């Protein structure tokens, strides 16, 4: 089994196996499929831009906190390398939102806020759990967009996003996180890691539901 361009072993593979039923829902989610074939509604794309912007804002806090939790300098190097691409993503969201006259500075939807809050809260559960959470979030994105990459139209307005999260560079990052995860739990994932990983995948699905269908609070 390959993942993110690398080889999944140990805890990363065990976590994927236990969440397999959810993984099928990820790669077959209507939002992903419609973005892939270019039939995603304009309104849904607008919601995606705004909510993914807010997601990355919260995710950056989480990733920075994880750098602080890293048990050694090499692990911190890997994680810190993930921070720079986030700036490019935020810039992309801002540009696209400005071009569509979307208010990106408004309030995030409850699912987005709940999801990013959960990521940040996981830092208090310690390194192995938090790195499992990071892997869940990144692996979900990579696998979903990689699943539609081959059929996605390059001329589609959604292509830059699909390309970004199914790229070899992103795959390499996900594989590096998998290696950190395997090293964090060499004997296999703990129950707390399994719960956290599973929750992230379900938050991801819920995030896409909210973007696809709209959500208020």
């Amino acid at each position, binding site marked *: 089994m390959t993942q993110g361009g690398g080889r999944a072993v140990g805890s990363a593979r065990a976590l994927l196996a236990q969440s397999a039923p959810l993984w099928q829902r990820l790669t077959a989610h209507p939002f992903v499929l419609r973005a892939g074939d270019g039939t995603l509604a304009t309104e849904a794309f607008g919601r995606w831009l705004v909510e993914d912007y807010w997601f990355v804002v919260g995710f950056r*806090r989480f990733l920075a*906190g994880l750098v602080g939790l890293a048990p050694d300098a090499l692990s911190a190097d890997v994680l810190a390398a993930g921070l720079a691409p986030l700036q490019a993503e935020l810039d992309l969201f801002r540009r696209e939102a400005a071009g569509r006259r979307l208010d990106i500075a408004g309030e995030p939807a*409850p*699912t987005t*806020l*709940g*999801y*990013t*809050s*959960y*990521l*940040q*809260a*996981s830092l*208090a559960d310690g390194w192995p759990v938090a790195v499992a959470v990071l892997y869940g979030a990144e692996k979900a994105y990579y696998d979903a967009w990689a699943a539609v990459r081959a059929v996605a139209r390059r001329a589609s307005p959604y292509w830059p996003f699909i390309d970004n999260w199914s790229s070899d560079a992103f795959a390499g990052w996900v594989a590096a996180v998998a290696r950190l995860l395997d090293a964090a739990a060499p004997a296999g994932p703990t129950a707390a890691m399994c*719960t956290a990983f599973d*929750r992230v995948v*379900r*938050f991801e*699905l*819920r995030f896409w539901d909210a973007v696809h269908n709209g959500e208020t*609070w």
Partner: protein
Amino acid sequence: MGQHGGAVSTAEQLVLHSAPLWPRVLGHPLVNAVAAGNLDPGAFDRWILAEHAFSTEYRRFIAGMVTIAPTGWDAEVIAAGLAPNKCDIDMVNRAALRHGTDLDIEPGPSTIGFAGYLQSLLQRGYDVALAALYSTQQVYFDAWGSIRDRTNWSTPYWPFVDTWSSAIFGDWIGGLCQLVDAAAPGGPTAPMCLSFDRVVRFELQFWSAIYVGETW
């Protein structure tokens, strides 16, 4: 007039800022159903489960607040909430036992998201997290206090309503108000207003998820 006879206090300003949400708090279907004594057994089951998960995580938030409290007085007031929180957990456990609720079931996304939001605020500074702590308590006190006099004591929900509308609970909130006022004597900052407001909206979502049910 403020609660101490002067200008409007910071705590009062926070409530005023989120005043448009308060009719939704006081008129929420879950609150009304509890008052009428006709809450669906399935909803009560979800309430017990969600409250158990939330209270357990909420304890970590309160404890985290104690660790970032800027003065001994702040820490003392906030820490006084830990014992009642344990009583809440025990009360919910007893309700689960009586009602046959399985507490090992995974809580819903609204519960996890809400608890996660509180925990995440510990990294945003004391005053912002304090505004959120105050919000969680004020919403509960106002909602359950509004139906205390018309809730049947023989319903299985009465211990919940009684606890969260009690004078002791109100006293703790009064202490939190004083901390909020001291933390921001010039009035609430925009981030404090935001965290206070988000907590109210998370609370409404939490209740809606209990009342209607949610899956993920």
